[in-house]
């Protein structure tokens, strides 16, 4: 087991004083943004990204990934206690978590969610350790045509899973793609859509886009609603452990949730909401008495909460090995890699093993910290839902401005963030999904450049894509996804709730 030796080294890196602290800061901040309704992992990671300037790359990524999976834990608390999802992946948890809280079983709901999250996270990490190096060793076979095909799979899945707001989702996705074209064309060097702005020649700054669309817009939303409203009374948390007869079904739901989360984490174009929805509907389908769901069924909390954490861990596999982000939050992490001069891709695991394994090891530690934070300390975090927004808002806003500024030391980026913030605010109000904008923005750049590179390699022959086994298979999968979703799309209304992302 070569990986095992590396992992031990990784623990050495992750346990060195500062990194342990960064891991703690990361997961705490993750819990924090998870608990605060509105700010989710995407905004949270984007917010701290600029602050990691000057840090060791491994410390920076340890902290930022901590925010990411920490938010998955934190989001549960508000869902269960006050029926408001702290972040979108915890939306489904409201369905059964809140009813449990009303029955006086808030503690159990949070307990099973924490245990499930922990197990899901651990399973995903185990898979990452086992599969990661394997994928990495094969990743050199991924040339531009394969990247192109994989992105096409991702985009078709994005469309296939769009569900009820298809037109709006497509507009959002196309908008993200259009934004990706701003800047220098990768093949000919022509400058496109820069409107005479030198800053735009490098394209739109990802952090301005992410923080504007996700963070700033949410701040405007919250400012409008509850700058002065009193926080809701929160129920008391006690008896964290499920009853004896509930352990069996809960554990089964947790294992199924892990499987779903891990599988979806591998595919680009998804996001952490999809595994939760899938897990919930599976639990409901196979339950002896589906009518319990929506009234406080423990499997309805255990499954989805596990699935989103398993997803969070597994989504790191395509990031580490291919440099392809599966979800918007992972796209921010990708930005962090690039900012710190690391190129995620086939050679990352070979060239920077101490980095990769340090981050992986830190996730074991981080998950353990989170388990402690969520079981004995759940009450403390619940109090956070009562911090008045009037003190949070100005602080978050000025830190966001400083963050956007310090990426390129550019006021232009700060202005762009405001533009995207206002746009995001209105898009949210009109129920346009925002996730696709960010995801297609990132995937769009890979899509175009890999298409150009492939066609240069194929000497202009489009059929070249089908003459290579991996890209041919992937493209056939993409075509199947589109065909299937068109077929079912006419019958089924698709998965509900995803317009929230």
């Amino acid at each position, binding site marked *: 087991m070569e990986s095992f030796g590396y992992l031990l080294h990784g623990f050495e890196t992750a346990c060195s004083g500062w990194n342990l602290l960064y891991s703690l800061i990361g997961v705490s901040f993750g819990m924090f943004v998870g608990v605060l309704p509105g700010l989710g992992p995407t905004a949270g990671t984007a917010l701290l990204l600029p602050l990691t300037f000057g840090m060791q790359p491994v410390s920076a990524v340890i902290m930022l990934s901590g925010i990411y999976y920490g938010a998955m834990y934190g989001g549960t608390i508000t869902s269960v206690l006050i029926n408001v999802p702290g972040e979108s992946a915890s939306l489904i948890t409201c369905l059964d978590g809140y009813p449990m809280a009303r029955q006086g079983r808030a503690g159990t709901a949070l307990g099973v969610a924490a245990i499930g999250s922990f197990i899901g996270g651990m399973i995903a990490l185990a898979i990452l350790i086992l599969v990661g190096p394997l994928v990495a060793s094969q990743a050199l076979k991924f040339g531009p045509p394969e990247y192109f095909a994989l992105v096409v799979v991702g985009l078709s899945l994005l469309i296939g899973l769009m569900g009820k707001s298809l037109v709006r989702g497509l507009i959002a996705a196309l908008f993200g793609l259009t934004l990706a074209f701003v800047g220098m064309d990768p093949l000919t060097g022509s400058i496109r859509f820069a409107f005479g702005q030198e800053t735009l020649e490098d394209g739109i700054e990802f952090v301005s886009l992410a923080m504007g669309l996700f963070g700033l817009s949410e701040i405007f939303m919250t400012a409008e609603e509850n700058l002065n409203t009193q926080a809701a009374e929160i129920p008391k948390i006690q008896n964290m452990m499920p009853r004896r007869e509930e352990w069996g079904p809960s554990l089964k739901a947790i294992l199924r949730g892990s499987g779903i989360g891990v599988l979806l984490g591998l595919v680009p174009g998804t996001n952490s909401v999809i595994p939760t929805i899938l897990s919930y509907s599976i639990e409901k389908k196979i339950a002896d008495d589906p009518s319990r769901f929506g009234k406080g069924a423990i499997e309805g909390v255990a499954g989805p909460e596990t699935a989103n954490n398993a997803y969070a861990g597994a989504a790191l596999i395509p990031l580490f090995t291919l440099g392809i982000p599966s979800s918007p939050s992972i796209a921010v992490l990708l930005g962090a890699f690039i900012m710190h001069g690391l190129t995620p891709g086939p050679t990352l695991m070979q060239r920077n093993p101490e980095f990769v394994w340090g981050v992986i090891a830190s996730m074991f530690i981080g998950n353990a910290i989170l388990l402690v934070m969520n079981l004995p300390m759940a009450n403390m975090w619940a109090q956070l839902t009562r911090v008045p927004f009037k003190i949070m808002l100005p602080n978050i806003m000025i830190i966001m401005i400083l963050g956007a500024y*310090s990426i390129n030391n550019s006021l232009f980026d700060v202005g762009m963030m405001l533009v995207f913030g206002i746009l995001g605010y209105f898009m949210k109000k009109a129920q346009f999904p925002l996730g696709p904008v960010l995801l297609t923005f990132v995937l769009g750049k890979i899509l175009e450049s890999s298409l*150009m590179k492939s066609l240069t390699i194929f000497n202009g022959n489009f059929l070249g894509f089908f003459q290579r086994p991996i890209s041919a298979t992937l493209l056939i999968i993409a075509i199947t996804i589109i065909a299937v979703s068109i077929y079912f799309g006419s019958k089924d209304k698709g998965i509900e709730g995803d317009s929230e992302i």
Partner: protein
Amino acid sequence: MKSLEVYISGFFILFGAIIFQLALSMKYYGEYGPGPGLLPLWISGMMVVLAAVNLVAALKKNNQSFADILPKGTGLINVLSCIGAYALFIVTVPYLGFTISSIAMLFILFSRGYTWRRGLCLSLLVTGILFFIFGFVLTVPLPVNEFGW
């Protein structure tokens, strides 16, 4: 008739049309494959079409009137003061420097929830801390005025 959906769709149509127009002047096809203009042309074209479809649907439904969607009273003032304070910051910071602009922005925001005295204290405090952290600890070259702050 003032449906938010109509305005948003209108925005996407306009944005798409501008990109489409610009993409027309770019090379459509290169030596080996699509030129710089091909993908933007198609993507923005599709966006315009879909946004138009959405626009027509919105005009028929007309269920989201702008007046309903826009916040009223305090909510509206809150949102406007957020945007206004932010815009004020961007406009003034190249001349006044980070500290003054930041204090002004934070003061506007804090005084939405606190008395003006407290708001001023808080904005001075927060600006001071952040100026120290970003300017000295993280050595970000913050925009400063003639006097270096």
